[in-house]
């Protein structure tokens, strides 16, 4: 086969199809995992009837949703109502073109010989920037879907998400800037390689950046405690109140795809992507027997678990409190963090190492201080009037 054709058309096409299928499937399975894990947190069983211990529940759900009647409310803007889920789904899947699941390698493919490629769509040299640009398109689908539904609850959900997503893009962007400063690269592959070269996962100097990124990421994906655009107990179902059947499923699937994206980016930027723990310690090299993609997925699943854990633990923020948290705490903190990291990065890798020590000592110290000063639970009953 023509080499140009192979590398420019066939391989990307195969990768695109495979990644869309894999991501859609994994997002589906994630809904099942979430329900099972949440059930464990909540002293119950979770779905355990369809398939082996409920393993096919998500398939049953998808099939049900496909065959459900697709209702468009009266006086809805039907064209936009139709477009909105697509507008959410497409960016959610597109970003998987840049996420590096593992290192580049050479594979023998029968009939084609040796092929050198990596388990990612493409390595764009402005990958991170493109990623932020693409993910922020998704919010339009939510706003328009809420607006087009001709429902006040959906409209309020859409407006909430507009405000929320725009506010939380800012601290998230600054957190990414910190990661870029540390790695001096915008390419996601480059960032992982930089962590290997620096002998340092960026979670150490980027503790604050990671915290900001993950909190903003939870807000970006509309998950508890920031699930205000959906807010079941307040807005019924928020922006997707009037969606049913497969269109609703598309919103749902996008949410889970976005969760995986946020987790994958957190892994790539701060936890060494596909690298094994301590990638430069020679005597741990037996860990290399485990392929990079497995390390990557393990790290991602930790974050996904944290997402579910949050859901089992936290109440929901109120809208104004959410905005206050974003604008008054996260944004100043993220700007300060950029300055801090910039100075450390100026000094190069030793600077980052010093910053790591400072941040982690501060974290542990702060934790100790806080745990000592925990207010005693009020046991004394107040006297009556």
């Amino acid at each position, binding site marked *: 086969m023509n080499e140009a054709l192979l590398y420019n058309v066939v391989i990307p096409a195969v990768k695109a199809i495979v990644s869309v299928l894999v991501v859609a499937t994994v997002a589906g399975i994630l809904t099942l995992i979430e329900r099972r894990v949440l059930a464990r*947190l*909540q*002293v*119950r069983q979770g779905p355990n009837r369809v398939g082996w211990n409920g393993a096919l529940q998500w398939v049953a759900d998808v099939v049900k949703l496909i065959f459900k009647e697709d209702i468009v409310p009266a*006086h809805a803007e039907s064209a936009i109502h139709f477009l909105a889920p697509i507008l959410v789904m497409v960016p959610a899947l597109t970003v998987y073109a840049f996420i590096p699941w593992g290192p580049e390698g050479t594979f023998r493919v029968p009939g084609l010989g040796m092929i050198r490629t990596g388990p990612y769509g493409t390595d764009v040299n402005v990958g991170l920037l493109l990623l932020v640009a693409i993910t922020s398109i998704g919010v339009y689908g939510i706003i328009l879907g809420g607006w087009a539904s001709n429902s*006040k*609850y959906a*409209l*309020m959900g859409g407006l909430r998400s507009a405000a929320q997503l725009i506010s939380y893009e800012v601290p998230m962007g600054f957190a990414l800037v910190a990661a870029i400063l540390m790695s001096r690269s915008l390419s996601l592959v480059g960032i992982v390689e930089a962590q290997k070269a620096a002998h340092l996962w960026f979670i150490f100097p980027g503790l604050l950046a990671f915290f900001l990124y993950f909190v903003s990421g939870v807000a970006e994906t509309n998950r*508890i*405690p920031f*699930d*205000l655009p959906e*807010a*079941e*107990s*307040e*807005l*019924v179902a928020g922006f997707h109140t009037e969606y049913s059947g497969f269109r609703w499923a598309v919103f749902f699937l996008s949410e889970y795809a976005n969760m995986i994206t946020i987790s994958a980016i957190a892994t790539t930027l701060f936890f060494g992507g596909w690298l094994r723990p301590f990638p430069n310690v020679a005597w741990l090299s037996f860990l290399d027997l485990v392929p990079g993609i497995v390390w990557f997925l393990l790290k991602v699943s930790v974050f996904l678990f944290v997402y579910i854990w949050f*859901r*089992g*633990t*936290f*109440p*929901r*923020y*109120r*809208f*104004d*409190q959410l905005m206050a948290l974003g604008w008054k705490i996260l944004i100043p903190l993220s700007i300060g963090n950029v300055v801090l990291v910039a100075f450390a990065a100026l000094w190069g890798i030793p600077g980052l190492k010093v910053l790591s020590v400072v941040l982690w000592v501060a974290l542990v110290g702060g934790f100790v201080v806080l745990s000592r000063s*925990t*207010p005693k*639970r*009020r046991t004394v*009953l*107040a*006297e*009556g*009037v």
Partner: protein
Amino acid sequence: MSEERAGTAASVPDSGEPMLGLREMELNFGPQHPSTHGVLRLVLKVDGERIVSARPDIGYLHRGTEKLFETETYPMVIPHTDRLDYVAAATNNHAYCLAVEKLLALEVPKKAQYIRVLLDELQRISSHLLWLATAAIDLGAITPFFYTFREREVILDLFEDYCGARLTLNCMRIGGLLEELPPGWIERVRAFTEVFDKNIDEYEDLLTENRIWKQRTIGIGILTGEQCIEWGVTGPPLRGAGVKWDIRRAIPYECYADLDFEIPVYPNADTYDRYLVRVAELRQSRRIVLQCCDWLAKNPEGEIRGKVPRVIKPVAGDVYAAVEAPKGELGFYLVSNGSNKPYRLRVRPPSFINLQALPEMAKGHLVADLVAIIGTIDIVLGEVDR
């Protein structure tokens, strides 16, 4: 937004700034909404998400129960009272029986009194657990629901073993009770109450010092003690506003005067303090249950029903009797004309009267707070609409 009403330039109550040509949106909240706890409908006027006014519209569950009472003989009324506050049937039975007993001047045997109090307090625990579960879900915390239902299940099983029903108990009779406690029942109650304190700690671990929970509840839906008294609000909202008023202590009925328990009172009149009051009441109810268990273990013999005439025909007259139900003062005003049926039986439902304060509490808050406020009032629509 075709339904949007063209209003005059309105102003937000607390900002005081006129809004330039903006209109308030009328939002129909319920009767089918996840957090209106039944079929409560609220017509909201909102400015963005801020509530300008909230008007409760009730009656979706109206069954004419009070009229129905007049067609039934005195004993036949009891099952109907189950359906008022259907998550706390024992206290409903109790309040009605108290009214009839007062009219008949009946003496209830000591043992029956203790069993009644035991049932009441178990019911209070189960009602408060249901409240905690739903109030937490309203604010987005889904996990406490499952923890509290685990314990509520035990209580409902106990009720089932005693009287065969889990919700509509029909467990009391005029002059006492229908049945003896089943063998081994007291031990099961005791086993439950002994671990229950730790279970309450579990709920508190999830909520009491939770930063988000506190942010969502402190300062929300303030109803001061004076306002509570003006509106006739009773129960945890009153005690959460610093007023020490509990019928069990203020006008003791049955054997409450002999029992050792405290009335939890918190001063700040907000949603958080009402939460603290209810959690503290869980602990106090547990204390009462344990004391009743002790007394009943020591005094296994005794009548469970007083000397009740075969046909209940009170003399003409009227009487009011009230108990401290989980949601507040539940009273029955009974008018008799000397026949075997009540001439008029009026219920003083705590849910209905507490709900009246909702527009006052919700004004100026956000839609998200409204949900917290509906939750904190703890209404049951069966009792509001009757």
